[in-house]
């Protein structure tokens, strides 16, 4: 649930993740986990959203063509395809 002030809202993250991020930014230029999170999220949001893909395309994007072909070949040899 977001709490609103004039310019910011509060987001919730799991405590273990917060602790991990706090350790991660020690010795860096980030003054707080909030500052780090805003930086990361702005960077992510700056990239356009991926277009809808077919299942094959989704699997393809996660695997190289060589991996896909090796998997298909093995599945055919074993009689699954």
């Amino acid at each position, binding site marked *: 649930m977001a709490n609103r002030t004039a310019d910011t809202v509060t987001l919730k993250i*799991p405590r273990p993740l917060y602790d991990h991020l706090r350790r991660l930014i020690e010795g860096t230029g980030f003054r707080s986990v909030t500052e780090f999170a805003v930086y990361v999220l702005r960077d992510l949001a700056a990239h356009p959203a991926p277009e809808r893909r077919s299942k094959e395309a989704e699997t393809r994007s996660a695997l190289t063509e060589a991996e896909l072909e090796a998997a298909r070949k093995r599945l055919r040899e074993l009689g699954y395809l």
Partner: protein
Amino acid sequence: MIPPHGGRLVDRSVSGEDREQLAREAGRLLQVQLNARELADLELLACGGLSPLEGFMTESDYRSVVDSMRLANGLVWSIPVVLSAKTEEHTKAKAGQQAALLDEAGRTLAVMEVADAYSVDHDYEAQMVLRTSDEGHPGVQYLRSITPTYLGGRIHLLRHPEHRDFVRHRLEPKETRVLFAAKGWNRICAFQTRNPIHRAHEYLQKCALEITDGLLIHPLVGETKADDIPAEVRMRCYEVLIERYYPRDRVVLSVFPAAMRYAGPREAIFHALIRKNYGCTHFIVGRDHAGVGSYYGTYDAHTIFGEFEPEEIGITPLFFDHAFYCRRCGNMATTKTCPHLEEDHVALSGTRVRQMLAAGELPPSEFTRPEVAQILARGG
């Protein structure tokens, strides 16, 4: 396609010149022979079955998992995946050192970049993970058989463990994902078992198949306790059952090479996350999942999922109560869907089934398919 746990399917296999280089150096490295569980875990680590893990757990992940069922980075993970020291030399391994991981025949399967070697308290681990330190629990017995020093670090697989059994049914997560995509399946339900599939299990699977596109029957074939039915006997049961009673185009049978932990609720979470890595969207959780004896409450493996937000688990658990054939209903049912008394139900304990088979008596067909009973009678 459902993303793997942590967002990326890990692949720790090395090939080409990198592989040759590591293979040449392996003989000079610290040698660590893996036990059966660690061999199975190595295989799963390498192929991404245990994504996002890239190796045996370092101390920070181990302690976080034991204490909170989360990795140090906050991702849900319920069971430690660890490599035990086998010698005094192993306990002195240092960060930055490399270790050759060997199978039982002394073949180098992988090289590990040692990140740390750390001491653990097995009683504490047992209490937290297994919810007991009773010596009768097979998971506790396993902990007593290994040293209380673990080595953590990323692994690089040089060669796959050798398997002569179930060769036709050993699919890795990459392969199941490609298969499900090729079949056009969006929703895939996984069924984990270390037992034969009786009518009750068949009923749960078919209920799940009614609301999904396909079913992955994924029997665990790694190390189990001595009185569990051997995997080769179980596989014959699964094959005959699928051939005669299941729609062939809706079912995939593939083996799950992991060792059994008998950790009940925590293992239910573990099993669910792994099947997500195999590309499944749903996971059947029946009564006393991964349980043994009476160490866990009948539905503890259901309630544990409530300790996490659904999106943190990612795969949808399908909870089923105790299933049986009801003579008055005239069909399979569970305690949720049948209003009749226990005396109207056909339900047998594992012990009773073993007694019947040993005496040459086949259990009733309302309990198990006759073809399965015959295989068990001959080979169980």
